[in-house]
């Protein structure tokens, strides 16, 4: 039964709804929750960025949507709905929509492309299986796709194996396969992390063009706030398995509300502005995944932390902007030195 939440999302043209999702890797020492009750949705054609450091749960969120959580991990609570009709995502239903209405590209296409199968075969396979295309049609469409992603000599590339291509070219092939069935949602998990900056710019441009042409929504997962800021309309910031801040890109860059987001923004040296003698850095390191946290997970590293922060887990809430949410006790509180003015 669709919940109210999902009905509302249907009206809003969402193509994925993540509702109170928790993912756990149960162990003897605890619940092993690595994603703690996160909710968000992405609308058709929208580009949303999921930012966080390693271990924040951002890639696992992607895998949860795809129903590809590695054992012994499991979705311990919550629901995911995908596609235009927002079908409930389950391991069984995934066979119908994975690769077609929801597709994913990863950091290293070498791990998603079969090294022993020629590229042409791998693209045609998708079209033949999901689109019931004839051999000839599939081949023709595969050449078109490779052309569209900027492969210089598609017919030659069709006959090649993934290992002979450069990283940038492999990512283009992965993208061609991902868009071959016109996905409603494309999940891009660190798609440019392994690439040089000039190639990164090319691939991000291509990703933007493809999403516009097919009106596909993109969920871009990255540790690089610069990449996300330039590509996405909305940003979700994850820390230790929780979304700690979310909102339109401009709002988050201009007025970050969570101390973690602010620290992320200032700990990368600027390319244009005057540089400080020392970078502002966050002391300590993120908590280990799967350890049960009482209160705010960021509190041990937070310069604004008070007693309440290590006792009560802050919920994601709005201040004055209805689209900008933050999970921090200090945000907007008169008792604290104003978070924004700092």
């Amino acid at each position: 039964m669709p919940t109210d939440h999902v009905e509302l999302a249907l009206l809003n043209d969402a193509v994925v709804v993540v509702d109170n999702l928790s993912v756990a890797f149960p162990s003897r020492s605890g619940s092993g929750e690595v994603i703690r009750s996160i909710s968000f949705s992405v609308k058709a054609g929208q580009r949303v960025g999921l930012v966080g450091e390693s271990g924040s749960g951002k890639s696992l969120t992607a895998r949860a949507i795809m129903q590809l959580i590695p054992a012994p991990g499991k979705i311990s609570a919550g629901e995911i709905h995908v596609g235009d009709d927002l079908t409930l995502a389950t391991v069984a239903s995934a066979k119908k929509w994975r690769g077609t209405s929801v597709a994913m590209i990863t950091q290293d296409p070498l791990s998603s492309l079969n090294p022993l199968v020629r590229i042409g075969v791998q693209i045609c396979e998708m079209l033949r299986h999901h689109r019931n295309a004839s051999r000839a049609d599939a081949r023709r469409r595969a050449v078109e796709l490779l052309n569209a992603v900027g492969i210089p000599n598609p017919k030659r590339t069709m006959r090649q194996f993934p290992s002979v291509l450069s990283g940038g070219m492999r990512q283009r092939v992965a993208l061609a396969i991902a868009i071959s069935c016109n996905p409603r949602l494309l999940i891009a998990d660190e798609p440019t992390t392994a690439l040089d900056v000039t190639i990164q710019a090319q691939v991000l441009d291509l990703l933007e063009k493809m999403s516009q042409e097919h009106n596909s929504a993109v969920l871009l997962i990255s540790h690089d706030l610069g990449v996300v800021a330039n590509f996405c309309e909305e940003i979700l910031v994850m820390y230790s398995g929780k979304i700690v801040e979310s909102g339109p890109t401009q709002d988050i860059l201009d007025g970050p509300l969570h101390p973690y987001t602010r620290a992320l923004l200032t700990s990368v040296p600027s390319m244009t502005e005057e540089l400080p003698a020392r970078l502002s850095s966050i002391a300590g390191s993120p908590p280990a995944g799967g350890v049960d946290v009482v209160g705010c997970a960021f509190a041990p590293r937070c310069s604004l932390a008070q007693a309440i922060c290590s006792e009560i887990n802050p919920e994601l809430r709005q201040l004055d902007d209805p689209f900008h949410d933050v999970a921090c006790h200090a945000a907007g509180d008169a008792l604290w030195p104003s978070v924004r003015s700092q």
Partner: protein
Amino acid sequence: MSFTLQPGETLGIAGESGSGKSSVARALVQLTRPTGGTVSLGGAPVTNLKGQRLKRFRRRMQMVYQDPYDSLDPRMSVSDAIGEALSVRGLPKTEHAAQVAQLLERVKLPATIAQRHPNQLSGGQRQRVSIARALAVNPEIIICDEAVAALDVSIRAQVLNLLKDIQHDTGVGYLFISHDLSTLRFMADHVAIMYVGRIVEYGTSEEVFSNPQHPYTRALIAAVPSVTRRGERRLKLSGEPPDPGNPPSGCPFHPRCPEAVETCRTERPELLTIGDAQKVACHVVQWGREKTPKTEVTA
């Protein structure tokens, strides 16, 4: 290629994969023998050293790599790993514990970490241990080959600050190799931009980042995604870097260069001085400086 590094200074080397950044590092510490040219340290040539003299030289130049998992022995505890370097320096075993504690404090790690093994440390802690290990032999130069590339941004900032503090206190010189230009802008006094095995632009950090001349440098800087330059129209490069084993004729950048003219295809530009310290290897930039419009003749 040629460059110099002053004591207490940081030279940044930037470039894409295959540009030869890491090969420079390996040639400097004589892990690969250069096929031509010399490397000198403190005025004395160090190329083609062998045996004891090579060992002594390597004490003066240390390396910190991207992934300390590769350079730290997984079966050695932190104190053993650092102690090994102390033995190289000739320090008696009895003094090791005190020195290890001092070095750990130097890299701002708790002394309790000394008995742990690499797999019990976080990425940031491991990188601090490899810095402590490099410092153990009191080197004059530390080569940091993508030393912070694998670290999360919040940890990266800590390690960069630490490296700066160490340089301030000990006067060690850094050769800082990175593909990340914003990190180099923060760390380096001088910067060399490499493309397919050659320096195409060199200068002070200020010169290169605020007034880049070579079309490749300009494109490289423009391609860095930055939160402060959001939505700017950027100069974009097409194509990919060529195979370093088979570089294009003339200027190796000409197939991707938006400003290439006929000469670029046939003649390789020399690295010539155009500013105080700034040097550029580009025909078009050099002609522009001479104010003789040779471009018209060749176009």
